[in-house]
């Protein structure tokens, strides 16, 4: 949440002549790459401009959070624009990811790295039609030799969308973006502006109230732990861990941001980090990387 000017080593946020202006620095910090500071709530009076001129690193979740911010501001009929990155590859990537209009750029030609540009799913009934588009793109652009990766990505899409529309209950819907960096490296970003995992879980399981947000998100990755009623819920997130934990997907990982918490899970390291982060994340945002061993491409610059 934000209402006043702030600054930190990664971003500044000030009142400008046409509304609020946020500038992101160009460093590789997670707060920039994954857009942890991008405002997702409370449209600013007089509009919002996000200055990405110095940004040299952009993960899919940054692109998706920018698209969500644009959508939230558009719904509130508040002006929103993005000053494009100077870095040509990052600028082109963000345009292909669905942000060309917000940056004042022409719509790019379809590319074979974006499986699904930033898309807003407004109703639960749209989950399957959008998923079918993603499935078609996977079949067309990812080789059959990576079927395990395609299945893991679809599993993540299915379970995260179900969670977002079943538990998230946000008037803004669910935002999703999928891309590939090569034949065996896929990324899915999904977010919503709903209640968020820590609050949702604590409301159903009061014994978790004393645990911090990061810890509660980590709990949600355990089988059978759910904020929903009924004994047959709570397997969606664990199913994703199972899917990306296949031996041939050794470089996969799952990141989740929600409220004041963040979790990073790397199946092959058998490691689950649930921690508190400085930036509050409205709703729940997840990035799923599905990759076979040795196929994670260098992360700079993104978008090629």
């Amino acid at each position, binding site marked *: 949440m934000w209402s006043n000017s702030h600054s930190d080593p990664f971003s500044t946020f000030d009142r400008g002549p046409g509304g609020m202006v946020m500038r992101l620095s160009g460093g590789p910090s997670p707060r920039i790459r994954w857009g942890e500071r991008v405002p997702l709530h409370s449209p600013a009076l007089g509009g919002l401009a996000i200055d990405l001129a110095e940004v040299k690193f952009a993960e899919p979740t940054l692109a998706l959070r920018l698209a969500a911010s644009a959508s939230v501001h558009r719904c509130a009929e508040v002006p929103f624009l993005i000053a494009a990155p100077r870095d040509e590859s990052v600028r082109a990537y963000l345009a292909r990811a669905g942000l060309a209009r917000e940056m004042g750029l022409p719509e790019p030609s379809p590319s074979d790295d974006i499986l699904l540009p930033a898309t807003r799913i407004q109703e639960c009934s749209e989950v399957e039609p959008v998923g079918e588009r993603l499935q078609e793109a996977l079949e067309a652009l990812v080789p059959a030799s990576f079927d395990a990766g395609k299945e893991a990505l679809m599993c993540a*899409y299915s379970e995260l969308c*179900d969670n977002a529309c079943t538990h998230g209950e946000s008037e803004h819907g669910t935002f999703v973006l999928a891309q590939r960096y090569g034949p065996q490296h896929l990324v899915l970003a999904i977010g919503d502006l709903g209640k968020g995992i820590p609050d949702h879980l604590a409301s159903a399981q009061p014994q978790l109230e004393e645990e911090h947000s990061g810890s509660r998100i980590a709990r949600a990755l355990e*089988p059978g732990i759910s904020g929903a009623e009924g004994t047959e819920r709570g397997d969606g997130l664990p199913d994703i861990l199972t899917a990306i934990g296949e031996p041939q997907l050794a470089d996969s990982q799952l990141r989740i941001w929600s409220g004041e918490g963040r979790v990073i899970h790397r199946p092959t390291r058998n490691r689950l980090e649930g921690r508190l982060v400085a930036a509050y994340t409205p709703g729940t945002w997840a990035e799923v990387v599905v990759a076979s061993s040795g196929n994670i491409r260098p992360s700079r610059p993104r978008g090629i």
Partner: protein
Amino acid sequence: MRFEMAKRGSMFSTYDRSHLLLAELEGELASAAGTDKELIIDFEGVHHVGGSFVKAFIGGTQTNRREAGLPAAKLENMSPAVKKKIEAALRRGESARSELQVA
């Protein structure tokens, strides 16, 4: 009666969808009441199913049939990925655990 999933889509993800489809299936079964006691759910052409969907739709169907004294529904023409997902989801679920019939 044969219930063809592909006529309704190629992927099934959400808890919401499972309830809509369950209602549709129950409606068709009611229309066909007395003519056929066997139910086949045909997954030909289905690329993906989600765990929540499986537990609510398949599990719900089997529970309804068990309570009505009818034989369990048969699941046919599943791709290996869909079959794996259904088996895993039903193994964990309470409903219809012992009633999965895979053709």
